[in-house]
């Protein structure tokens, strides 16, 4: 009787307006395990068949290293480009009215909706040596299709909506009064943007950057068409995994996958830390 009292009280204290913490938490954990953790664990399990030496041998192979470098490097560059120009696009959409704004606003989402293969083929057709755009770049000595540049291009293409769509609502909510306050205090346009507006939307830009990077790092469909897939030059890691699978080298494929996973996780944690830092500068609780 006496022993039962504390637990009874605890149950009472935990009661909140929104019921079902136990149920929803349980479901969340189960769901995440089923959808995310178990398949990923499978990858680790499969690659563990190689043993540490075998794993190390696979992932330090020059061809694998080059592919990883290209995948992550191009994704990072693409995300950086998007962070800059996606922010600019969001700014224009929020701040200005112009003819066809709704149309262009819808166009932003196309990279989301388009089958990636279609996007890849379209980009390839445009940028190859005899394509609409490529024919003008070729004489200048700029080759886009079938080079790492093409990979960056595809990464930029698929990542754009992430930045625009995360920055847009934050910019919309940013009070115009902040700019007016800065101006009344004597700040010029550049000072207002750099010291007032950018810090306000920086967390959103970082989020968009992260999403664009994560998406581009794992992108397959749109890249393989434009990349040309030359080993050591324009071959991306996801493609390498496919190649290994086709050679029935399942353990090797999962080893590359594990390397990708680890790198992604490391980079995402790093960006997350950046976000926490930038939010803390706002004096917000994290």
């Amino acid at each position: 009787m006496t022993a039962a009292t504390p637990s009874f009280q605890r149950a009472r204290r935990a009661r909140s307006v929104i019921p079902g913490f136990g149920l929803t938490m349980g479901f969340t954990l189960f769901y995440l395990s089923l959808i995310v953790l178990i398949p990923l664990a499978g990858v680790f399990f499969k690659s563990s068949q190689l043993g540490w030496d075998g794993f190390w041998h696979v992932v330090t192979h020059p061809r694998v290293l080059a592919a990883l470098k290209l995948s992550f490097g191009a994704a990072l560059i693409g995300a950086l480009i998007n962070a800059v120009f996606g922010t600019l696009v969001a700014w224009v959409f929020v701040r200005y009215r112009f003819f066809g704004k709704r149309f262009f606003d819808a166009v932003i989402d196309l990279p989301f909706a388009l089958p990636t293969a279609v996007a890849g083929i379209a980009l390839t057709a445009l940028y190859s040596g005899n394509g609409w755009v490529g024919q003008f770049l070729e004489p200048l000595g700029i080759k886009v299709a079938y080079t790492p540049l093409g990979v960056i291009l595809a990464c930029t293409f698929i990542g754009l909506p992430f930045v625009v769509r995360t920055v847009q609502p934050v910019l919309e909510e940013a009070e115009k009064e902040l700019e007016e306050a800065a101006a009344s205090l004597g700040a010029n346009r550049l000072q207002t943007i750099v010291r007032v507006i950018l810090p306000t939307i920086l967390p959103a830009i970082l989020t968009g950057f992260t999403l664009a990077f994560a998406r581009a790092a794992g992108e397959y469909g749109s890249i393989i068409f434009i990349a040309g897939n030359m080993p050591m030059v324009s071959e991306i890691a996801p493609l390498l995994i496919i190649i290994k699978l086709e050679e029935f080298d399942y353990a090797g494929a999962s080893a590359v996958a594990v390397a990708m996973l680890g790198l992604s996780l490391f980079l995402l944690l790093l960006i997350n830390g950046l976000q926490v830092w930038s939010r803390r500068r706002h004096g917000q609780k994290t």
Partner: protein
Amino acid sequence: MNIQIRGIHKVFANFPALDGVNLDIESGELIALLGPSGSGKTTLLRTIAGLEFPDEGAILFGGEDIANRPVRERGVGFVFQHYALFKHMTVAENIAFGLDVRKDRPSKEAIRKRVNELLELVQLSGLDKRYPTQLSGGQRQRVALARALAIEPKVLLLDEPFGALDAKVRKDLRRWLRELHDKTGYTTIFVTHDQEEALELADRVVVMNRGRIEQVGNNQQVYEQPATPFVFDFLGSVNILPGEVKNRELRFDGSDDVWDSESQETGLVDIYVRPHDLQIVDSQAPGLDATVTLVQRAGALIRISATLATSGERIELELSHLDTLARSRQPGDAIRVAPITFGLFPRAPHRRPTTLPDVVPNAPAENRERAR
């Protein structure tokens, strides 16, 4: 810095926000722009600041026309209703911002000294490392004020500075702002829709309606001698009764008694009487017969609603609870009512000037800051 405003016109999408505004403000004055929403008071303030530009007219700061200069070059301190503090900066960084962006930036030490002075002035010493989100509404508004004062503005402009605050905090800040003004002597213009705030705080009140200035005067003038029916109605509640002026004598419609009138004009008039300027009189004294319909006791006040016997017009009275003739009235009682003072205006074709509430009294919770 004295300010002259000459013939300002401003149209927003066919809506005349300012329609020929003229105003003189003396150096060191504390001025209230008072009016309902859409009266143009905020537009006028923003035009003075340089956040809006007039279509026509001149704004002179100390004799120099600055109507086309951007806000950056005007040297005005602007305080926003919702503070507009930079959330990613500490209190000290916020206050220092105006000094920090200057071309001839003062030394770090000088800025720090000035920030500390201002923090002391707004009574927030020790909170310099806090972020705006860690402050109460009243504190935030004081930071905003300190930030505006940091640039030593020629004029201090406040847009509904207490609009987002609790009634209690609002009252304290109001008194505090008055003291601050007396101490620093900045020419100050603030916008409000709250007549009590305007009357209590300002040296002079500018009553605005539909983009025009209805009356400028000190608080006694605008309250006791309203120039227009609108001012009469906007500054407190009012009974409007029909009457007629003949040979300097005023007669209420349906009454045989006459009152002296200063009005030279003859004809039909609307008689404006405030509820507390009505009294209950003996049945033999000059007055209007009425029947009590409702009695409310509010503290030291007795509010009586009654209908006039002659016209059926509804009137409101506010009487002291010490008034022997007012006490223990019941609905249904017959009373005789006489005005102590009143205002006369030519009868308007449609009677009651409509005043809109500027801000809904029960504004959504997110717009009202609760001070801790």
